[in-house]
């Protein structure tokens, strides 16, 4: 079940990005994205877990590039990024599943995990789409406010990590 979901995530992620690029008349880019997706699938077959990190970075950078420089439709780009994120998560989850003792135990954990990651992916996609739909005027004041909030958030996260370690 996990493997199926993982393959689907990679296909959707790479496919969405490639389709987005193709729609805007960039077949060369689309071809490279498809090629990378194939390489990711090969890495899944070979159980190269490290490749998922490269895959996640690649998908997000490809999405960001499309959004930033080429002003693509956000939908396909978000779908590509979220596909990459889900594939990255499932790659690690698949590795953790080695601890499962029986098919029953595996099924329970898999079901729970897939439900949560699906909900999170949907929520992420929904919130991002909503943000784009509302189309805030993103001016300099908003940027300053976002920077302050981001800095505070990161400080909190670092403090939290240090407390734990």
């Amino acid at each position: 079940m996990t493997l199926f979901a993982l393959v689907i995530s990679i296909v959707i992620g790479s496919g969405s990005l490639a389709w987005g690029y193709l729609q805007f008349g960039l077949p060369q880019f689309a071809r490279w994205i498809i090629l990378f997706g194939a390489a990711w699938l090969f890495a899944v077959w070979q159980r190269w877990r490290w490749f998922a990190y490269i895959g996640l970075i690649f998908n997000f950078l490809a999405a960001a590039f499309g959004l930033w420089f080429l002003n693509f439709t956000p939908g396909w780009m978000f779908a590509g990024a979220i596909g990459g994120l889900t594939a990255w998560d499932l790659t690690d989850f698949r590795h953790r599943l080695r601890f499962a003792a029986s098919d029953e135990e595996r099924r329970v954990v898999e079901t729970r995990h897939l439900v949560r990651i699906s909900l999170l992916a949907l929520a992420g996609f929904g919130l991002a789409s909503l943000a784009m739909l509302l189309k805030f005027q993103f001016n300099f004041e908003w940027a300053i406010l976002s920077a302050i909030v981001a800095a505070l958030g990161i400080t909190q996260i670092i403090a939290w990590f240090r407390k734990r370690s």
Partner: protein
Amino acid sequence: MSRAWFLGSLILLLLLAGLVALHGALIALTIPLLLCLLYGLWFSPDEVELEVRRELSAERVAPQTPVKVSVMITNTGGDLEELALADVLSPALAVQDGSNHHLISLPKNKSFSFEYTLRGPRGGFPLETIHAEAGDHLGILRVARDIRTFGQLFVFPPVARLKQVPIRPRRTRVYAGTIPARVGGAGVEFFGVRDYQDGDSPRHINWRVSARHAEDLYSNEFQQERVADVGIVLDGRERSNLFVGGHSLFEHSVLAAASIADASLSQGNRVGLLVYGQYLEWTWPGYGRLQRERILHALSHAAPGASQIFEGLQYLPTRMFPPESQIVLVSPLVEDDYSTLIQLRARGYQVLVVSPDPVTFEENFLPRQPQVQLAARVVRMERGLMLKRIQRAGIQVMDWNVAQPFDQAARRVFARRIQTGGRP
């Protein structure tokens, strides 16, 4: 770098890019990542607090005997969304039934039990660690902990039952036993004739000898039977035990040593064990069941090893064995061991050599070619010659073809020795 740090860095990168470009879509792209990270931070456990209880169906077993392991884990901390558990085992142990690892969700104050069956070869195996790894469902933040438990599994070597080991050391101990003591007194075997003394039983009067003397009476004297000191030396040298393809005679030597120790202790003797290999492992001499346990413990841990110092038997520490006691050497023997054995004999020790036959053993793993057969024949002749020379020096030798069970081989050889009064 942990997954949380990785996500955090990616979020930061996108956020910075969004701020620099003043592009809302780039910032919106961080939302799924942020959700994942926040979920991980929210649901990951602060600490893993678990109580573990492990029980074994048996702690001392024979090789490849199934042992049931029951583990009960209680969560004394907070809820654990995803908990990976692994009872850490030695690679030599094999799980036969069930599983020693699990992936579960364990709420606060709840318990989880699991059972599995394992088996293993000879050895001592600590079961001291349960590895627990807890985290949120997305595995963003994980806390790992090794929980210490107490437990050990001893797989003792197999012991072949021997009725008697025909040993006859020059010196025995004072306690009554089954070894002829070369001293007259109460016993079963005839020892000699002496003058009748007050208190002698009339049944012990030797009437035939007394009839030849008009005035005196003579009594039969019997050989006292006492316990003796037996020192078992197990040869653990790699050069004498390891053969082509990594095949080893050591397991057979261990079986022989265990069987002889068991039989000697059953006869009431004081038995010590010296494993002579990579280093010297000495089990002090003792009597009875406790000593049997100690020797089996030592044998369960024994392994062949190489050492430049103990390459030959010349460094055998004879001072560890009481003078004129019995030494049982369990060794496939190599050519230069002959002189050491002669020296032992010259020092007054009674020596019994139990030698698993390395030539026949190794021949089984070699291709059946004329050259191999010729070489085996030559080596067998050399070995036969060496064993003959050892026997001529007054050393008892048991040449054991390991294809035959040890108790059967020993019964045949030892029965002959017992008939000849333990003489080689």
